[in-house]
């Protein structure tokens, strides 16, 4: 009788220990997942913009860890979750570097475009001003094309002004996009006027 009770107690103790261990695994897994989710949320906008593939991989890993937890497999869940915070932290470092690189590239583009495009506008303006004084348009340029060139020049000036505004307000991405539009439109207008675009550097 005594031996049987002792045996039952030992079994109960093992069950209790096992349950305690499982509970501990579950809590650790939950904590790791929560930490990873919070950290990922904090970098999600930039991560999806600059490193979308890696962002997706980390998000999938979190989803997999949560699925293990939901299935009640605390040990597997912990194995899947324990490295998540470190993965998110590493992703954050990579995202910051990628963002810095992207901004540096945009800044280079802006510096180049902002040095170049006012000269393009100046050259087009000069030609439009001279042609406006002409009693007759040259061969190869009809009135419709000249009118299109003049309205194109107005559009270019408006776009360039908007690009500068974007840059001055800190939105370099929009500034570069608008500057590229100026360059594209300027090239088109120069073509209408029979002007040759500047040779590529």
């Amino acid at each position, binding site marked *: 009788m005594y031996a049987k009770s002792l045996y039952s107690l030992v079994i109960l103790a093992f069950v209790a220990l096992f349950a305690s261990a499982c509970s501990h695994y579950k809590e650790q897994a939950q904590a790791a997942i929560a930490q990873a989710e919070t950290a990922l949320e904090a970098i999600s906008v930039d991560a999806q913009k600059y490193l979308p593939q890696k962002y997706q991989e980390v998000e999938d890993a979190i989803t997999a860890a949560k699925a293990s937890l939901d299935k009640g497999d605390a040990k597997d869940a912990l194995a899947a979750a324990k490295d998540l915070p470190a993965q998110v932290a590493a992703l954050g470092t990579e995202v910051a570097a990628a963002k810095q690189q992207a901004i540096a590239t945009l800044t280079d583009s802006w510096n180049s475009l902002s040095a170049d495009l006012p000269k393009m506008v100046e050259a087009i303006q000069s030609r439009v001003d001279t042609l406006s004084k*002409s009693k*007759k348009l040259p*061969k190869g340029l009809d009135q419709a094309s000249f009118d299109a060139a003049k309205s194109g020049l107005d559009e270019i000036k408006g776009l360039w002004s908007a690009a500068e505004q974007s840059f001055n307000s800190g939105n370099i991405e929009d500034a570069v996009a608008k500057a590229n539009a100026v360059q594209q439109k300027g090239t088109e207008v120069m073509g209408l006027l029979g*002007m040759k675009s500047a040779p590529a550097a």
Partner: protein
Amino acid sequence: MEEKGQPPGSGTDNPYTQYYVVKKGDTLSKIAKDYYGDAQLYAQIFEANRDVLKDPNKIQVGQKLRIP
């Protein structure tokens, strides 16, 4: 009518400045007529090239002229 990009040593830093290389038989009036449709606008070309032209009636074959 042949427009050229910026030649080396042109004295301007605008890469969009248009140039024309003078050919035999050219006059500023003829060039103005070709580019602007109006020979009377030769003065525009002359003024843009005062650094290399002293007289609008004297241009030389091979000269690179700015076409404003």
